[in-house]
């Protein structure tokens, strides 16, 4: 298993739990999973990153792309519980000011 995405449909939010490693070989897969939900008309998304052990810029690029897309439709893509390593990378790219980041999944889902 390199990356797994568990999708749960909640009342107001679509929750994506990503597990494993997000890099240039599978970032597109993550983007496609998010796009599919947006295509279906849902634009409030939560990405639970607590089990992402590694993320490269390819993953961040997909996240930013989808964030732009959902914002246009009045939605948002919010992040839950990134690891310290992933958080550091988000901060380096200035993405901690662009994404709303919550310490837990419950808080991220509840924020909508």
């Amino acid at each position, binding site marked *: 298993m390199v990356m797994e995405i568990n999708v749960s449909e909640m009342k107001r939010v679509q929750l994506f739990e990503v597990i494993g490693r997000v890099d*240039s*070989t599978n970032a597109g897969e993550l983007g496609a999973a998010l796009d599919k939900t947006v295509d279906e008309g849902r634009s409030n998304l939560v990405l639970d990153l607590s089990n992402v052990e590694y993320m490269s810029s390819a993953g961040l690029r997909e996240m*930013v792309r989808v964030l732009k897309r959902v914002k246009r439709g009045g939605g948002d893509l919010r992040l839950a519980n990134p690891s310290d390593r992933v958080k550091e990378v988000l901060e380096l790219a200035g993405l901690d000011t662009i994404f709303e980041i919550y310490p837990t999944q419950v808080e991220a889902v509840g924020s909508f």
Partner: protein
Amino acid sequence: MGEVSRLVIVARLEEVRHACDFVVEEAEAARLDKRAVYHCQMAVDEALTNIIEHGYDYHGDNSEIEILCETEPTRFLITIVDESPAFDPLAHHSPDPTEPLDSREPGGWGIYFIRKLMDDVRYQRIDNRNYLILSKNRPAAITGVQPDESEETFPVRFLDGGAVVISPIGRLDSNTSPVLERALTSQLQKGHFRLFVDMPDVEYIASSGLKVLVSAWRRAQDGGGNVVLSGLQPRIREIFEMVGFDMLFEIFPDLDTALAQKS
């Protein structure tokens, strides 16, 4: 000059992961801390991805990229050598992290991360090859006395009748699986073959953790015993099912049930 380790990959994205594993191993051997190891992994990933996507334009199937790791007293060096057209990543300007969302360009972040995450980055073009040399400093603390890791351990309980319960906590990844391995091995070496691994506090398990459990299971079976698992969180249980290890291990919902069934 330190000893040089070398890995050659085909210039394909699917190969990058092997290079990352290689660099992680070498960086750990150089005793960089977890954060620095992560930085090295990411810098190499970004550099190789750039070479494959842009240098070879995804047509690198017949080309090779060489990755060299070298540990010097004060720094850990990663050199990446490829034969794609000359490209100096350092000559390109970096994106701006303060840029608001609307005006953000998607690209360029790979090189930005390489420069931010490593202590020194150099580029040279020699004999029609690109040489990218990434350097991470080794703190003085780790170049001298090595810390004693043998004290790091998980709770172990001895039950009447010779069974042993080991309760790993947190993440079982390539950094922490050796701790579980030590705990299991030390019991197996003492002839304790009836082992219970109680896992309600395990939040994550990587292949390294699975490997440790399977090799202990095998040794316990050889000794006429067993490694029995209990208390797996749903996410962990799912991983076991995905790799088919639920067929291999006896797994119980909690430790009490496991003990009641197996004692």
